């Protein structure tokens, strides 16, 4: 008998067995409950992915049995090929990737620079600016979506050769309004406040300018804030629906989320819709699972400030 065994035995003696059993039963019950919940939240997505590999006949035949959630029976890649057949899906995908990538990249630069100016530098009107930015946080986008639609239709747009009226049906109208984000600015501002100012002073003694301090000192130290801002910009940019629904008409600028709406109206099979939905969802889910920790802490940080 080893020491730990002895200890375990002593503990078992000290505590009557009657008390231990309910504890284990309770843990078991909780595990069953957690598993049931996991099925509720996970199975619909499993169903979506599994169905994307089945012809409609098979999908409907499987509905009443566990086979609905299992990749068995008549499996095929036809649904995926069908997606590319019926709509310029590759174009939609490219549009969405482009729009979200540019929104995230420009957003990181613009918002962190603004936050840097407010947090580290002497800026006239700093307090007012911060107050206004915080105040706009309460206005949901849906409130101003319709006036905004009218407004962007008034703005001049340079179409490559001349200025025309209206930004509708372009890439910029899907990107530019979402670059500056009050939330990202606030996030960077708070993070920058936690970086010691002595670092700036040391760099200044060495002859670095403010822009240099921003690029080479403060930003490299702000990894977590950058990750959080990137995630919280990417998700809505990729998933946005209301705005592109109103401002896009041509297939050449239409993103995937609006594209699936049009796709469905073509009376395609359910398997094809599931294939479309899977292609635009699974990469994001994979990204989420890979960077689980960063995702969760970024979402949590959006709540902590409250």
């Amino acid at each position, binding site marked *: 008998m080893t020491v730990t065994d002895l200890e375990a035995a002593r503990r078992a003696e000290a505590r009557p067995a009657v008390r231990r059993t309910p504890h284990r039963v309770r843990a078991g019950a909780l595990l069953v409950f957690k598993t049931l919940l996991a099925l509720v*939240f996970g199975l619909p997505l499993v169903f979506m992915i599994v169905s994307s590999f089945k012809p409609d006949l098979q999908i409907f035949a499987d509905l009443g049995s566990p086979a609905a959630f299992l990749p068995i029976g008549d499996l095929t890649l036809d649904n995926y090929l069908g997606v590319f057949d019926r709509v310029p899906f590759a174009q939609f995908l490219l549009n969405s990737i482009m729009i979200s990538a540019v929104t995230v990249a420009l957003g990181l630069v613009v918002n962190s620079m603004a936050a840097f100016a407010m947090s580290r530098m002497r800026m006239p009107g700093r307090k007012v600016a911060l107050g206004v930015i915080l105040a706009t946080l309460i206005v949901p986008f849906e409130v101003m979506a319709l006036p905004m639609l009218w407004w962007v239709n008034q703005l001049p747009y340079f179409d490559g050769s001349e200025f025309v009226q209206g930004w509708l049906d372009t890439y910029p109208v899907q990107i530019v*309004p979402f670059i*500056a984000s009050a939330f990202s600015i606030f996030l960077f501002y708070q993070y920058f406040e936690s970086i010691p100012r002595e670092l700036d002073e040391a760099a200044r003694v060495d002859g670095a300018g403010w822009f240099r301090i921003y690029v080479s000192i403060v930003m490299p130290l702000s990894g977590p804030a950058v990750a959080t801002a990137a995630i919280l910009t990417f998700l809505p940019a990729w998933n946005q629906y209301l705005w592109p629904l109103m401002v896009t008409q041509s297939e050449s600028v239409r993103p995937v989320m609006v594209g699936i709406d049009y796709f469905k109206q073509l009376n395609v099979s359910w398997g094809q819709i599931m294939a479309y939905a899977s292609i635009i969802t699974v990469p994001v*889910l994979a990204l989420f699972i890979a960077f689980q920790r960063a995702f969760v802490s970024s979402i949590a940080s959006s709540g902590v400030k409250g």
Partner: protein
Amino acid sequence: MSSTTLSPPLAEPGEATRPGPSKGRRRGRGKESATALVMFLPAAVLILTFLIIPIILTFILAFTNTRLISPEPGRFIGLENFSNLFTDDTFWASLRNTIIFTVVIVPVQSAIALGVALLVNTRTRGTTFFRTVYFLPVVTSIVVVSMLWMFMYQKDGLINTMLARIGIAGPDWLGDPNWSLFAIIVMSIWQAMGFHMIIWLSGLQTIPAELYEAASLDGATRWQQFVHVTWPGLRPTAIFILITITIAAFGLFSQVNIMTQGGPLGSTTTLVFMAVRSGFERQQTGYASAISLVFFVLVLIVTVIQMLLTREKSEKKGARS
């Protein structure tokens, strides 16, 4: 190159420039302010153009008959949009549905999210797995979720087939006006629960473990620990969650537009759906702005309530800046 020209050359080490703002240093300050403004400028222009002007426009356009595309500029028409709105049955149906959706989803979703958060706020094995699974729908676009659930909600779809196996004849979820809003509520809770679970979890983690130790030494049951330790500790999180769910619930649109188009018989039409119908499809920007203004007033009411709730808290806590 810009980095060196943006700031003035620093004084030689040892030179007595520190005490008292010398001329050079004052000029440095001016330059610093100028640099700061330049760095702030892109964000300022964008926020002004795409956040502040549209908000102001909501207030102006609501009192005009502006159309989205029209050769004639909009005219000031006073309260006409509002008098039309208040005599429009669709508006009242939309307002009613929006409020029902909110009133149901706020307590139910936040309570489920808190329950689930308590369930996975442990260090046992598999916790990360469960948290991840519960969170998956949040990462999934509401558009995809709507398509998926539309299929599941069909008369002979996944949900009814499963119900049939335990002997329940399910209704035509989205086609029956008595069930359609309920169906949208259930789906919305499924999609967004994980988001609030994470926020509850981060709130739970701010409660010091010593409090639980002290409570269990005093012989408090789990329920007593929850009432006297957990719940008071979660108050700021609770206020934040209630406000964010409420404001998000007012914005209900995507699910409705994809799954039911406001029907059947107006049973799922909402304020934002109605605003999009008028402002986008019928091009009545002025009318849509009036609806947006009503929406804005609802949000303001919620925000004022939030301010009152948080003020009460800080007064109770005493002088904490």
